């Protein structure tokens, strides 16, 4: 589903964010990218959603080589990806329903699809009773659920999550992780960057550890060290 082949990303002239990284993620996998701030976790995610282009090496996502992908094809790649962020990136002037519907609306989905899919996914994330609330009227955990709903509403094959529990307390984080696990069980490949020890140690999934842009550990059923 995802394959990195000797990927290097250099920002500016000399800031090496990712250095010769190679790994493969199979369809339906759930993996953690761990490491300190600045170790290159976010850069890897951004390379996978082609917000960045590799300086060297190839990034394959869903059968497509992103290094050779034309800019005009990127929107169609993004439609098969879901993105979740630490800061949720919700639109504050839109309700929960509208935030999720927005993701379908702007890729031109007809209204009957929106009316059908949005309540379904809000039910899945457990917000069926809060569809008309605005983001400011929700807790952090609830806001993250909205953002997951938005990422998942188009049924992506891959979900990329950048520190999704970064702003949440342990109990709330657990709920979010349960939700991501549920999404993973539908066959969606999940790649999550985190430095949340508890989450990684509880889940016991594949762990890829980065240090200054280099993979230092790739372990099945790993823990945070």
């Amino acid at each position, binding site marked *: 589903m995802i394959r990195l082949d000797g990927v290097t990303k250099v920002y500016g002239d000399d800031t090496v964010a990712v250095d010769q990284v190679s790994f493969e993620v199979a369809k339906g996998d759930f993996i953690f990218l761990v490491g300190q701030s600045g170790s290159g976790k976010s850069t890897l995610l951004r390379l996978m959603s082609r917000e960045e282009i590799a300086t060297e090496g190839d990034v394959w996502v869903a059968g497509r080589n992103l290094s050779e992908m034309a800019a005009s094809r990127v929107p169609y*790649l993004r439609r098969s990806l879901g*993105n979740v962020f630490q800061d949720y*990136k919700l639109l504050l002037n839109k309700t929960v329903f509208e935030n999720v519907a927005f993701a379908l609306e*702007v890729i031109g989905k007809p209204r009957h699809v929106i009316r059908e899919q949005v309540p379904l996914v809000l039910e899945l994330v457990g917000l069926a009773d809060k569809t008309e609330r605005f983001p400011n009227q929700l807790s952090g955990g609830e806001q993250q659920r909205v953002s997951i709903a938005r990422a998942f509403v188009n049924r992506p094959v891959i979900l990329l999550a950048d520190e999704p529990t970064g702003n949440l307390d342990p109990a709330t984080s657990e709920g979010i992780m349960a939700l991501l696990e549920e999404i993973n069980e539908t066959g969606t490949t999940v790649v999550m960057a985190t430095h949340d020890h508890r989450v990684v140690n509880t889940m016991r999934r594949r762990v890829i550890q980065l240090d200054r842009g280099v993979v230092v550990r790739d372990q099945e059923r790993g823990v945070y060290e």
Partner: protein
Amino acid sequence: MLARIEYALRETWASFRRNFTLTLAAVLTSAIALLLVGATFLIQRAFENLLLQWRGDVAMIVFVRSDASPEQIALIDSTLRAAPSVIDVEKIRYLDKAESYAEAQRIFAGDPVTLSLLTPETIPTQFKVVPITEDADLVRSLAGQYRTLPGVEAVALAEDEFEVISTLSRFVRTVTLIMSLVLLVVAVGLIWNTIRTAMFARRREIEVMKLVGATNWFIRVPFMLEGLLQGLIGGVVSCFGVWALNSAWTSGVATFKPGTGISSLVVPSGYLSGVIVILLALGALVGAIGSAIAASRFLDV
């Protein structure tokens, strides 16, 4: 498809309301710029009426009495052709009664009193003469000879009637054209700025749109539509302005004494509607250019 169109229109309208003051400034500037463009056209057209009979480097017109015999007309023609060192004989043009009458109708369009005195039967016919020499005195002395020919009613020289107006017309055209060009550029800039501000105000939305896979065109269209609409509204406002200006001018001209020449400075209504179409198109173009530059440059947020 329908959902996309609806989305684009809804977003355009919302953005319009959100940036009301900036939008107003952009619309008014384009309106004033276009008004000036329209005025340039009208002034030019008005002068053209006045200069109509001198078009094509004609420097001398020999008017022939309406009751002149064919022999007299033939004599005038051969006399003109006898001076090939002064007159470009290839370009001598004779306007018969029908042609002269048609021309007079345009020249005196704003002067119904003079026009009513003319009929296709009583109108003088005319020879239009293009000189071949630069020597104005030579042309003038020749004109003096032609006045004495039988059947000649009058000889008019461009130097006397045309030069001042022509110079004035050129000057007015240059000034209004430069001013309207500058204002059009300002209008493009203001629309560009309005759209840029609108996009900046919605940068989070644009960021999310790009993340979930909206195409650049989908993101751009509402903004481009907004700029187009601003230019077009400016065009509509300027059309009202041009129409009001022209009506005021036309009714003002009607109070002048007939035959003073000022009355030639009116614009036929057919031409006015042509100008209006041009102004609307130009307004849309200004809006499209301004917003297209903004939308293509500020999409990376």
